[in-house]
């Protein structure tokens, strides 16, 4: 009886061992590995430790070089700004442009900005150029173009407490660029009438103070005045009171009768 009991135990143990061994498992194909979801790039700044590990330079820098000019047709004032930066992963710049006339009145103005952010370690250097254009409102002379610029460069990092702070930074405060001046407008015609006149034997020409009518049409070209006119010229003698400028006609007599015949 005792022997029989041992056999039963041994059989059970053997079965158990067999069941648990590899020999008991059929060859099966492993299921395809599930696509591992890509870990999204964290929109965050590099950690302080990364800076230390990669020995990032602290030589941060930013330079803004404006180039203001009027376009060739003088209808637009253009300000190009080149931004160069070093060891920064957060860069921003703004340029302002305005046009003033002789009286200092702003004719038109505009501004433009750029922003550069890199959620990673800063690169050694980078540069970009951006432009702002301002219309002269079709005024083509006598204007002054003014420009100013400002910018900043930061080296941003995140610490273990997930607080972002500026590791390094450099700012360019708002700085005026050199003015650009358009040539003066052509001078107004000295007079809308004969250009020069001499009075009292003085050789100098009289400047005119009359306003000019922009619209002073001329007769149709090629036409002559189909008018003949005769007139009498009288000579008059006046007494002028210099204290009151009152004039009194003494007498007048005809100098002669003249007739004008225009050229055919």
């Amino acid at each position, binding site marked *: 009886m005792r022997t029989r009991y041992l056999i039963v135990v041994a059989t059970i143990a053997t079965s158990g061992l067999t069941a648990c061994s590899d020999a008991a498992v059929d060859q099966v194909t492993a299921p395809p590995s599930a696509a591992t979801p890509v870990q999204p790039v964290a929109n965050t700044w590099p950690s302080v430790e990364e800076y230390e590990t990669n020995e990032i330079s602290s030589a941060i820098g930013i330079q803004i070089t404006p180039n203001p000019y009027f376009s060739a047709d003088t209808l637009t004032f253009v300000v190009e700004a080149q931004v160069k930066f070093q060891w920064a992963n957060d860069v921003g710049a703004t340029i302002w442009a305005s046009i003033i006339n002789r009286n200092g009145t702003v004719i038109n103005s505009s501004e433009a900005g750029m922003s550069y952010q890199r959620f990673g370690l800063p690169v050694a250097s980078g540069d970009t150029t951006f432009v702002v254009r301002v219309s002269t409102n079709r005024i083509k002379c006598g204007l002054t173009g003014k420009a100013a610029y400002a910018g900043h460069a930061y080296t941003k990092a995140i610490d273990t407490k997930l607080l972002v702070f500026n590791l390094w930074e450099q700012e360019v405060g708002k700085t005026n660029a050199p003015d650009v001046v358009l040539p003066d407008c052509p001078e107004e015609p000295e*007079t*809308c*009438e*004969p250009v*020069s*006149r*001499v*009075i*009292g*034997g003085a050789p100098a020409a*009289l400047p*005119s*103070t*009359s*306003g*000019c*009518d922009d*619209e*002073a*049409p*001329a*007769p*149709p070209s090629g*036409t*002559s*005045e*189909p*008018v*003949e*006119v*005769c*007139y*009498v*010229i*009288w*000579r*008059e003698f*006046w007494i002028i009171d210099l204290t009151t400028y009152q004039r009194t006609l003494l007498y*007048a*007599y*005809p*100098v*002669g*009768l*003249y*007739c*004008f*015949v*225009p*050229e055919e």
Partner: protein
Amino acid sequence: MPSTPTAPVSTMHRHACGLTLAITLLAGLSQTTEAQQIPPGSTRVTLVARALAARSQRTEVVRRAQQTPQNVVFVDQNATPEDLASALALLQALRIQNGDQLQSDFRAKPEMVRMRPSWTQSAYRDWIIEQLVRLRLATPSAHGDLGLVSAVQVTLPAAKGTVTARSQP
């Protein structure tokens, strides 16, 4: 610069628009009959709307030596295209006689006017009418010593023609 007239005086008289007093010189005028040495070029003329005193007078030409505008034509509201055309012709004649460098002031108005046969169909007449319309539509504004008046400017071409003395006193 007297030259042979192209129209007889009698013809001029037949077509005369009216006989009135003519030219007034505000100051001494010794060189009125002298020929102009330098042919006057184009010039601007200011047309000024103004009621003229004499009923028969609808235009008046004023040339001023020391004031601007230098060439002024006063135009009555009843002025016709013929009136304005004759005034401008008179102004051209004065320019030929005295040039544009004046030493005296002039006031003048046409004495006798004859329109050539081409007048009624001429582009010049249409242009004259346009200027009268411009003048009547002009907004009064300050024009120097002329005060607040309705005025427009026109450009007269170079004066070309002949001025002939018909009689001397």
